[in-house]
């Protein structure tokens, strides 16, 4: 089979590698929005529960964690490549996949930053109108 590449990559692994950034961004948004909604409901039902700090803490930590993970993916793509595709990048096609993955992770980290920074500024559960 000299006509074709010498390696075979696991499909699921390749998929998760390619979407490394976006998946982190999606996780961050789910935790942020879902956490805020659930905690605001708890705060509404029981007076003593202080929603503001809990939400800011939760979203702060999630932003930090997912932001760093996606920046890490953008800066050192070879590690997740070896981890998920269980082989080393070899030829131009792998180079293209890595290139795509890096920019996606960079964009995702920007999205995470955009969403994360809002928590620091705005009141947590207020309707604010």
């Amino acid at each position, binding site marked *: 089979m000299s006509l074709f590449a010498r390696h*075979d990559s696991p499909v699921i692994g390749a998929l998760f590698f390619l979407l490394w950034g976006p998946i982190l961004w999606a996780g961050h948004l789910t935790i942020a929005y879902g956490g805020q909604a659930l905690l605001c409901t708890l705060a509404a039902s029981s007076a003593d529960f202080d929603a503001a700090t809990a939400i800011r803490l939760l979203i702060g930590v999630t932003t930090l964690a997912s932001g760093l993970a996606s920046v890490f993916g953008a800066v050192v793509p070879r590690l997740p490549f070896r981890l998920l595709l269980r082989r080393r990048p070899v030829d131009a096609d792998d180079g293209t996949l890595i*290139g795509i993955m890096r920019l996606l992770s960079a964009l*995702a980290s920007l999205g995470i930053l955009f969403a994360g920074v*809002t928590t620091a500024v705005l009141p947590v559960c207020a309707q604010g109108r």
Partner: protein
Amino acid sequence: MRIWKTPTGWRLPTAVNNTVIGLLYIGAAFLFFVLAGILALVMRIQLAVGDQRIVTQELYNQLFTTHGTTMMFLFAVPAVEALGVMLLPQMLAARDLPFPRLSAYAIWAYVIGGLVFFSTIFYDLAPQGGWFMYPPLTTTQYSPGNNADFWLLGIGFIEISAIAGAIEIVVGTLRTRPPGMTLAKMPIFAWSMLIFAGMIIFAFPAVILATMLLELERAFGWPFFSAELGGDALLWQHLFWFFGHPEVYIIFLPAAGLVSMMVPTFAQTPLVGYRLIVVALIATGFFSFGLWVHHMFTTGIPTLSLAFFSAASMAVSIPSGIQVFSWIATIAAGRERFRMTVPSLFILGFLFIFVLGGLTGVMVAMVPFDWQVHDSYFIVAHFHYVLVGGMVFPLFATFYYWAPMVSSRMLSERLGRWTFWLMFMGFNVTFFPMHIVGLQGMPRRVWTYPSMMGWDLLNTISTIGAFIIAAGVLVFIIDLARNFRFGQVGPDNPWGAGTLEWLPNDVYSTRSIPLVRSREPLWDQQNLAEEVKNGHHFLPGAPTGGRETVVTTAIEAKPQYIIQMPGPSWTHLFAAVFTAAFFLLLTIKAVTIAITCGVLAVASCLIWAWQLDRPGKGEVDIGGDIRVPTYITGPQSHSWWAMVVLMLVMGSLFIAYVFSYLYLWTVSPDVWAPDGSPMPPHVAYPLLSAGLLVGGVALLALAYRALPDPGKRSWEAFLLLVLASCAMAAAVGIEVWGHWITGLRPDASSYAAMVYMAALLTGQGALAVIVLCLFAGARLATRQMDRVRRVTFDNAFLLYAYTAGQGLFGLLLVHGFPRLLV
């Protein structure tokens, strides 16, 4: 070749070849575009000046609802899916899509359902709730007639045909690429169709669940959306817009992919920034799922939540920026000047309008500004700029660019230019003034406005513009009528493009499937066309004696095996007709006839499936001394992949349900179990039900081991299959029975409705699984399934395992969550 001959005469509807049904698909989509366009003209006449009473209030409300619904559901998504069905196989040099009858079924269901839905405007039965159908306006209290049901059932069922097409395109893009076309060498249109299909798989189920909930509330009073019984009108908006916004990107991405195919041809240079455009497509696809709440900025949701989605709405504009600048770079990188043909004119028109629409999009992503312009004519202007600019202009470019592939004569340049300039000028004259009228306070969806408001002049200009667009489309239709000759393929590669769809191909696509080494094979491999024509590449003949194409691995595109594809048949056509009849008869409450049509639809599907899964023909040589099997089971089989994609669809439907369950708890905790409603039954019930589900899976594992050798029959496997189906049915029955005896009735509160909804979703899956298991049993009994030839069994096993898993998680949620709150 005789094998691929398209049936003629009154047997034409049985055709499944992608070019034939693709053309029907495009034709139907264009017909709906013209019809909805005429509705828009009537609306513009009514709004030309203030205080007009040409169109009554009720008719206008039906007009704008039908215009919106037809454009979004019956024109936009089907048109891009049709381009996928028509162009993708040719671009990937595949003989056809992996499941030709499935796409034929989807297309016929769409055509019939769409025509019946659109016809409701003629006999005063068209829905009046707007294309978004917000409850409580669309509940029976405020829309008592059948109008709303036509939207809920008619459009709901057409989404099912869109999902069928999406499954087809995912498997087609990943598995039927020509040998050598690795992921990184795939044409951009294939990338955009892959992401398009992926988005449909995760977005459409949300609106299908919402449609089911609203139809249940309208028909049986399950209070999901009525506030006094614990429901919430915003639940519908969340579910609808979680689908709504990805849908507009579902419409835009394929159009962007088409532009990325045409620009390099007219610049006669490879696309600059291939990676960047792929990143842009994937990023747009992902970010579009994270910004649905920007349609709900004015509903009083806390500002912090709004800020999350405002951030995501801004982030999504970056990928569009990347694509625009990549196209400009490609135009600049062209050796000679960018050729000014009709398609390139449409592309430049697209750039102009889409960029302006994108900028107003960023403006509207700002929450405070959206508080001012939401639901005003500013938004009408914005989305027409991004949708008409972003999709209709590339579509017209595609008509002119790819016409030679299906018509023996090219469309005329002269008429084409007239069409372009009329549409371009008309578009801006119509929709730019709407920005100003919107800011002057004119809200959307108003059948008239007082003439003292000073909006008359701008609205009159918009009406004149609308007629100019109509003139442009008319010129295009004249051009179509004069030059489009349905018949053998036109001149070879008139534009000098680089991608495979311009290889000389006939009804069976290319004579042989080429080995691909780069992104523009026609440019890089000189006499590829002659080599392919003389059959020097893969699969020149038809070794299995039927319709087949090569299946390659997803990433590296190494040949793996040959698919044997089914040919023309009546069964999928009847299945489509009866499915359409089932849903549409339900809307007018003719229940008995509807159920019979439903049963007939399932029967036709079973007959259709009976002709599939033909025995393998052993190893065959496909050329280049490569021998591949013709029958394969297990995770590499394309039907396994299709089942996985189907399970993703059912999974996202279930996740949307879990979101709705938790959301309704946050809205009305007082209605929830410990104090608001009776507690779920004793834990024995869910445990028994769960036990049955897990037991069923075990039974199927045993049946797998008991599969007979080829040619023999095994009664144990048959028995195990039947037992497993009964176990599943019993599990669902016990779950429902458990709740019924606690006195919980589904129409009591939103909590109760949600509890029964879980059982209903699992029951829906169970019904499909039982039919599949019994079908597998029948195959087993007639010696058509054995240890080697077991694709049907694999599919049944997969679906069974998934439904059991979903059932278990449903039990955990419904029985566990209330106990957490105690």
